[in-house]
């Protein structure tokens, strides 16, 4: 791999780790959302250093453009209550969780960093050769449509179900529906009927 690719990896990796740590440790959710944005932009650099151009563009569009904006909108909807204050778990539980996750993570990291050097490096991509199209729109699209046609179509159904589920979940009840539900509470059969009618 080229030196520029190595530099991109190092810079992006440091930014990604800093963003992830900021997301987890911020007390204010809005600050956490902005740290998540930084983390996602850093991951775009990681994807670019891996010659995954199309995926980098998708990452930027879907995560930075949609998911983070959704988070910020929900934080805005909830208002100041989004900050839960000092309700995090106690010091002992937090220390235990940190020790457990830290030891597992470090164990895996030491194993993978001690890799076989023959597997460590791949042939770089010369400009003008065929491999320059690797990870592009055409190459990835061909792979998705040939190798994953049915899952790709199922993704559209998944997204449709998610949209309907999110609407049903977040819409709440109109005053008339709430009245019907509270009236039905006295009578279990009426509650079941109201739930069925919904």
């Amino acid at each position, binding site marked *: 791999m080229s030196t520029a690719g190595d530099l991109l990896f190092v810079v992006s990796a440091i930014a990604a780790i800093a963003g992830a740590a900021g997301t987890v440790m911020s007390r204010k*959710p809005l600050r956490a959302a902005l740290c998540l944005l930084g983390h996602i932009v850093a991951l775009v650099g990681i994807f670019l250093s891996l010659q995954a151009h199309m995926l980098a563009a998708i990452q930027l569009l879907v995560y930075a453009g949609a998911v983070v904006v959704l988070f910020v909108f929900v934080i805005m909807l909830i208002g100041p209550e989004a900050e839960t204050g000092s309700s995090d778990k106690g010091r002992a539980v937090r220390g235990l*969780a940190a020790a457990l996750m830290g030891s597992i993570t470090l164990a895996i990291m030491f194993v993978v960093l001690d890799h076989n050097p023959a597997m460590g490096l791949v042939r770089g991509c010369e400009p003008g050769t065929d491999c320059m199209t690797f990870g592009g729109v055409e190459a990835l699209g061909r792979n998705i449509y040939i190798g994953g046609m049915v899952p790709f179509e199922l993704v559209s159904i998944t997204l449709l179900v998610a949209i309907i*589920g999110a609407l049903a979940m977040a819409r709440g009840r109109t005053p008339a529906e709430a009245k019907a539900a509270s009236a039905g509470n006295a009578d279990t059969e009426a509650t079941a009927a109201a739930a069925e009618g919904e």
Partner: protein
Amino acid sequence: MDIGLGEYIALATLLFGIGALGFLTRRNLLIQLMSIELMLNSVNVALVAFNRWQPGSYDNMNHTGQTFAFFVIAVAAAEAAVGLAIVISLFRLKGSVETDRANQLKH
């Protein structure tokens, strides 16, 4: 310094560990959802790195890992939408986004 597959997998492991730690220790539902996103993203890094280092992936244009990462991104977007709808619903019910307040099934 040569950056190989090991460095990428180590980065993915570290990011997954940070996300899991955040999910386990924070009580704020919004930040727990963000931690889930961190974990899903770290898996994407591992998948794309394995794709790049797969022998012959350049010659026969094998994008299996990137295809997997594409589907992970799509499912993560759906998960965020439904998860945030649940957050709003819980906030309407309890007036708070603390997970400790969601205890109706406990009693």
